């Protein structure tokens, strides 16, 4: 009895970890896409921010400095991406590809440059975000929930949210009534990337407590799929992310069961989250609706 309870709690705890980075990145991207800016560089931002978080957390021997560094790194990337897409009217996808490629090289380089090891580094315990005693979950899980609810409030209950959504739906209509389309887009892109940065910090100095050059392992792109799945709504992203996280954890758990391991090797089971993501997105057709003007530059006259 107690053994089963422990098992269930284990899976739930695992879910709380697995869902956090997905939802953070997705909620941020929802804001950006609501304003019309697509960022397929979430994966790269998570990686870069994860790296910066470790560097700063270790330097200060304080995990919260690391978390801030991760957010800051994300915001910086978001600022550049936002400038390219909103002001220079550049291609959203190519800029996002640039972020991903840049991150891949920079972090692999950085790990070696900073710690002199190849591809993998574990920060000291003091740099790791502590667990909330008693309930044994990460404080960043709570932060994620608050951010999600706060973002929902921002998008749907404030005049700023109205402007953000208007810009992504019909920038012309927003422009006519005096909304600064470009600035709104830039700030939304920064917000989105900052949250992806937080997700990266969570991966490197909290959950996985390590930095590798494949830190996000596709989570940035799964977050993109989650945005779609959640129909661009933060609250639905919370639910969807919990579902993704739960199945991910379950798969992790099952694949390590001796009985299963004998039949299906772990390596094959590793494909499950990715197959599930595709299946979910393919099953969505017609039910989700992206912001009408997403991913396209807005040009007057």
């Amino acid at each position, binding site marked *: 009895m107690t053994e089963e309870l422990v098992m269930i709690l284990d899976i739930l705890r695992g879910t709380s970890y697995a869902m956090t980075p997905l939802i953070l990145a997705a909620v941020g991207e929802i804001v950006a896409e609501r304003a019309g800016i697509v960022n397929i560089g979430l994966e790269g931002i998570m990686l870069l921010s994860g790296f910066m978080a470790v560097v700063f957390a270790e330097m200060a021997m304080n995990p919260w400095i690391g978390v801030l560094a991760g957010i800051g790194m994300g915001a910086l990337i978001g600022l550049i991406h936002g400038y390219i897409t909103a002001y220079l009217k550049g291609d959203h996808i190519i800029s996002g*590809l640039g972020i*991903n*490629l840049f991150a891949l090289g920079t972090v692999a380089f950085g790990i070696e440059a900073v710690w002199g090891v190849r591809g993998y580094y574990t920060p000291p315990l003091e740099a790791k975000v502590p667990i909330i005693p008693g309930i044994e979950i990460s404080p960043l899980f709570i932060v994620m929930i608050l951010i999600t609810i706060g973002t929902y409030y921002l998008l749907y209950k404030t005049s700023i949210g109205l402007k953000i959504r208007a810009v992504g739906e019909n920038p012309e209509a927003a422009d006519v009534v005096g909304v600064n389309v470009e600035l709104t887009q830039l700030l939304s892109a920064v917000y989105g990337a900052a949250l992806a940065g937080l997700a990266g910090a969570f991966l490197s100095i909290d959950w996985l407590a390590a930095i590798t050059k494949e830190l996000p392992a596709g989570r940035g*792109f799964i977050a*993109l*799929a989650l945005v779609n799945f959640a129909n661009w709504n933060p609250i639905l992203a919370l639910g969807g992310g919990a579902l993704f996280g739960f199945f991910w954890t379950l798969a992790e758990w099952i694949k390590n069961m001796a009985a299963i391991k004998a039949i299906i090797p772990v390596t094959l089971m590793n494909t499950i989250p990715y197959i599930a993501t595709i299946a979910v997105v393919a099953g969505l057709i017609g039910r989700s609706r992206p912001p009408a003007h997403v991913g396209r530059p807005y040009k007057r006259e």
Partner: protein
Amino acid sequence: MGSLSSLKGKLVLLKGTLEKLVEIIFAIIVGFVIAGLMMYMGGFDPIKAYAAMFETSLSLTDPYYIAMTLSFATPVMLTALTFAIGVRAGLFNIGAEGQMYMGALGAVIVASWTLPGPLYLPLAFIVGSLLAAAWGLIAGLLKVLRGVNEVVSTIMLNWIAFWIVEYARVYVYPNPIDASKTISMPPPGRLPLLIRGTELSVSFIIAIITVFIVYYLLWHMVLGYEIRATGLNPTAARYGGINPKKTMLWAFIIGGIAAGLAGVSEITGRPPSYAITTGLSNLFGYGFDGIAVSLIGANHPLGIIPAAIFIGALSAGSRGMQTTAGVPLEMVKAVQGIIVWALAMPGLIRLIRRRMIRRRGVEL
């Protein structure tokens, strides 16, 4: 009159090409400068690093280095074609990575068979490229039938391919002698080396030929015509009696074949392993490098050849950079990323030029 007007046409074309070239060179300079700053901040000497990089990649003092450069150019030239064909059809197919894994797996499958010697090579190429094409087709079908965005689907398929191939490496085709890799391609199935003692094999020539075939396909065949029309203006393509969905599927298939050839050529043409190694380490990243190559090469097959050699030189030179200047060799990937990012800024040069003119105007 006629010749004059055609000359004018050529000049218009030339001006466009030149502008693009300036833009690319500018992006490359930006990439090197920013990466240099990063090295400096990391406590390295960027000038020493770049010098070493050049010495060990493009310097004519030792043909070994040139050979290494070309050998690294080979797979990325092919994966670049995957991305380029996609862009020409209006798609962002970033699945070359996974399709390349599948191609390599195909070659390993053939390597595991007992066959008359001369059959290994052709079968490896056929099985590998078909497997990769099928992998690309999945993303195509998801796009055409279910409207799944190809950026998400191809990335997911990359990871799925990674784990499937990794599974096959460990469980299905393990090397009985060396646990760190799969069964090696038997010697009759290996492509001859172009320069002994290097990793440069005939696969480089195959890649070049493939580039020209794709060029021919895109600019001299009906399918290429239809692909380009679809990518440039799907509405007009439909008006022109072209079925854009069918065209897109073909773009995924052909892109898959190109990526597959990259995988096969790594198994049949790169010493010493002639196999897939642990964690796909000898394949990992070629697909993504291909995106950079394609973008630097203006998504044009003929631009891809010099771009691939450039990226190949970075990869080859990164080793020298590491030994001489102590800079981690992954630095070159950061350079690539910055270049692509700089390329995403349209009219950046125009912007700078305008600002310069304005400043000069004030001085006057």
